[in-house]
């Protein structure tokens, strides 16, 4: 009887221990910060040059609370002591924008907002080989006495070098070839047409020449006879002189 009683206590103890362990595991997995931001770090690289259009990336913000919360996004410079090594502040914070800037996240839900990096065309020429750090944070609009703001570190690497003329030519080679082909075709067509015109005029003239006697030839022959006469005269006069 006593042995059976101790067995029951052991089983009961095991059940209680299992329940407590399960509760511990559940509480550990469920517990999370009020707001989570993903990713924690976002790196944008432009190794091949600037894009014509602005660059957009998404950040997910998760509400770990059991009720809806209204949040706002903020773009800011990091404190100087928190700047990542070899990074500097962006010259103008207005080049980075978030949309939307205020929104509601449902309880235990998530919302995605967009971060857009738009460097004005007029500034791009001054912004090569730069590494900038910008902070994107999210906070509750109606917070308590103490508020927490998770931050996404946005790291921007601008193109390493301005594009060289050679690089530009190489990149635009297909267009260049096309335009040159068009250009050469036009010139070739023009030359061909001009030549055809000239040939037809020449042919016409030649035909015309065949149809009439050559005045030049006649004139040449007249000239030739005159020469012979002159020569005979010269010989005769020489003969007379000897005799």
């Amino acid at each position, binding site marked *: 009887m006593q042995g059976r009683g101790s067995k029951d206590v052991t089983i009961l103890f095991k059940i209680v221990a299992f329940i407590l362990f399960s509760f511990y595991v559940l509480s550990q997995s469920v517990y999370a910060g009020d707001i989570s931001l993903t990713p*924690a770090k976002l790196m944008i690289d432009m190794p091949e040059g*600037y894009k014509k259009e602005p660059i957009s990336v998404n950040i997910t913000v998760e509400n770990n609370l059991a009720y809806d919360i209204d949040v706002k996004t903020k773009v800011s410079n990091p404190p100087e002591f928190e700047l990542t090594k070899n990074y500097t502040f962006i010259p103008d914070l207005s080049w980075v924008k978030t949309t939307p800037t205020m929104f509601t996240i449902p309880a235990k839900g998530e919302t995605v907002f967009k971060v857009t990096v738009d460097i004005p065309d007029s500034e791009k020429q001054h912004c090569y080989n730069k590494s900038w750090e910008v902070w994107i944070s999210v906070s509750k609009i109606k917070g308590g006495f103490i508020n*927490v703001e998770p*931050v996404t570190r946005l790291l921007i690497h601008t193109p390493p070098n301005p594009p060289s003329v050679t690089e530009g030519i190489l990149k635009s080679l297909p267009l260049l070839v096309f335009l040159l082909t068009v250009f050469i075709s036009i010139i070739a067509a023009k030359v061909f047409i001009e030549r055809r015109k000239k040939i037809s005029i020449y042919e016409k003239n030649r035909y015309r020449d065949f149809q009439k006697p050559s005045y030049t030839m006649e004139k040449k022959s007249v000239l030739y006879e005159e020469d012979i006469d002159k020569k005979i005269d010269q010989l005769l006069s020489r003969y007379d002189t000897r005799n």
Partner: protein
Amino acid sequence: MNKLQVLVVGILLIITFSAPIVIAADTATITITVTASGTVSISVSPTTWAMGTLALGSYNATSSTYFTLSNDGDVRVDTQINASNSQNWNLVTGTPATDEFRINTTGSIPLSLTTSLQNFKQDLDPVTGNTYQFGLNFTMPTADTSGGVQQTITVTIKAAQG
């Protein structure tokens, strides 16, 4: 060549030789690399502190372990802290005078808070010690010119991947 032909050839020449410069300056087919990592999630508990009614020139302090800061994300974080001015009072780091107040943190990182961010708990690791406990000490102004209007003050803790 007539005038129209000269014009067409001229335009083609301009396009041909200016195209490389235009394309070099702004290419539409370039690649942008975006690398993303980790989740940052931070919480503080409790978020309120019932100070009660305080007399001018007095102070109130929590225990040095009253607040618990927790890193609930999957990356190590550095935290920064600051506080706001209230409607009529200014935050100072020295001894408060009229319409001035002071907030200090207590615990292993004692700070006199300012409106600018200051380094707070560094390297809060999600695995090897994801919590940090601290307290606050609030010192009232010596005199108040607002006529006893209730003041709202906020303490903000930012957390970024360390």
